[in-house]
């Protein structure tokens, strides 16, 4: 393992993030805070309880998950796409770095950024909503697993993309709708029976449900199933990255 190499990539990526802190941190935190104000404080007061939890508190895990998913994808995809775009990727490819080193550096930095954003939103939410976390360790595990998994997914996107437009397609046109329809603002038990079954094909349901369980001890899907789902997505992403480095797809000719 090239420890100095991993550290160099990690520090470089984190430095870039801190340089643009306004855009990197405050933007997602502000937009999520607006959700809390509108759906939590303003509308939430008229919504009553969902599964024994106030509506304002109910949407907290889903909104944090929404930020984690979109930020993980965009941070990780941009992190690897930008050196490909500028051509500086030559240095990474010619350095004594294994695929593990490269992925650890880029994905590690992107996951750190996502987790920082997630934690800041968690604290910010407390300013607007009264909630508590029943299983903090499970919450941290879920947060970390989701951040790492979707950063791996973002890494794949960054390799696949051949333009900035493609970087935006998956987060905006796939992940955002799946998150909104995955139970961020409602419990799937509130849906008609047919749509409940359809919703179970949405992988984001399992992520939000598992994360919500760590807060309130209740969820749409059993916690074990949620953990299994996130682990499965993680394995699929790892397999795709293994294939990318084995074939040199869009990295080496």
């Amino acid at each position, binding site marked *: 393992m090239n420890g100095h190499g991993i550290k160099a990539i990690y520090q470089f990526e984190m430095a870039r993030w801190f340089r643009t802190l306004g855009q990197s941190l405050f933007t997602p935190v502000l937009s999520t805070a607006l959700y809390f104000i509108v759906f939590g404080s303003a509308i939430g007061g008229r919504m009553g309880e969902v599964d024994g939890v106030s509506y304002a508190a109910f949407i907290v895990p889903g909104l944090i998950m929404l930020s984690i998913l979109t930020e993980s994808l965009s941070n990780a995809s941009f992190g690897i796409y930008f050196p490909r775009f*500028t051509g500086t990727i*030559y240095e990474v490819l010619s*350095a*004594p*770095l294994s695929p593990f080193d490269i992925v650890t550096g880029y994905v590690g930095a992107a996951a750190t950024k996502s987790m920082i954003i997630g934690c800041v939103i968690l604290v910010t939410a407390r300013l607007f909503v009264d909630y508590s976390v029943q299983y903090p360790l499970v919450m941290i595990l879920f947060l970390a697993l989701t951040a790492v998994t979707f950063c791996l997914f973002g890494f794949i996107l960054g390799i696949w993309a051949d333009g900035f437009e493609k970087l935006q397609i998956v987060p905006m046109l796939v992940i955002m709708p799946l998150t909104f329809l995955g139970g961020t603002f409602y419990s799937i038990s509130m849906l008609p029976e047919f749509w409940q079954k359809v919703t179970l094909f949405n992988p984001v349901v399992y992520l939000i449900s598992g994360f919500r369980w760590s807060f309130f001890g209740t969820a749409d899907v059993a916690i074990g199933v949620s953990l299994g789902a996130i682990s499965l997505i993680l394995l699929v992403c790892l397999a795709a990255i293994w294939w990318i480095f084995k074939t040199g797809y869009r990295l*080496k000719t």
Partner: protein
Amino acid sequence: MSRPVPPNTQPIISIKDISKTYKSGVKALKPINLDIHKGEIFALLGPNGAGKTTLISIICGIVTPSSGCVTADGHDIIRDYRAARRAIGLVPQELHTDAFERVIDSVKLSRGLFGYGPNPAHIEKVLRDLSLWDKRTAKIQELSGGMKRRLMIAKALSHEPKILFLDEPTAGVDVELRQDMWEMVRKLRESGVTIILTTHYIEEAEEMADRVGVISKGELVLVDEKAALMRKLGKKQLTLHLREAISAVPEGLNGYSLELSGDGSALTYTFDGQADESGIPDLLKRLGEIGLDFKDLNTEQSSLEDIFVSLVREQRP
């Protein structure tokens, strides 16, 4: 100045049957065999698309070869890629930089990527040697083209490589900076670094290289010591500037390889610079006998450029 490669020197780079065919079917490299010796400056000459950058990219790990193997500093570039790559520094042809980064951060990143811990003294030395120390906190986008080129070299030297690849190092660089770079390359060689450069400027190879390889259409056409190459293939020419123009080469000079200039004022005699007899005394004597008077004369030896052009021409169908 070039220096001959010592006999029996262990190659620091050994290329065996390396070839590259792209998925599109384009054959970028036909099987190439080449040894590069420790401490030499090797110039790889070739026209655009000849395969120079592909060969360098394979050795540096950026392009996957279709066949063959390469060792760098005794390490296989695929099986033992970590050790092989640590020995290599690469300055690519294009100025690939992170515009918003600071100069010093970019150089530190390069050192880290190659597996080395921080060494502020070395980074300072590299930046000072390349006249970039005063610009260390500047953003890369603020640098001029020449400074960016030097930054690329600083990044490649940040991990103290034993082998340095310079892919068209002086492309688009002004004359003064080019001279500075040549000087820097010589200093690097004196410190024991092996340098492989590709160039379009034959003058560059002629000025600096110990050995020259000519690559054309993916094939290594020729490899030799620069001095030997120029001796072997270098033609010499004697030009006689006539006192009065003539319309044709006189019959009395038919036995000599002579060419008359367009305006009839100069005769050029081409001869083998390596032969024991140049034939010049006989020619001058014969000129006297037939009464052809000249006012001046000069000799020229063909340059590396002439040799290169003639070799590449031979390759063309």
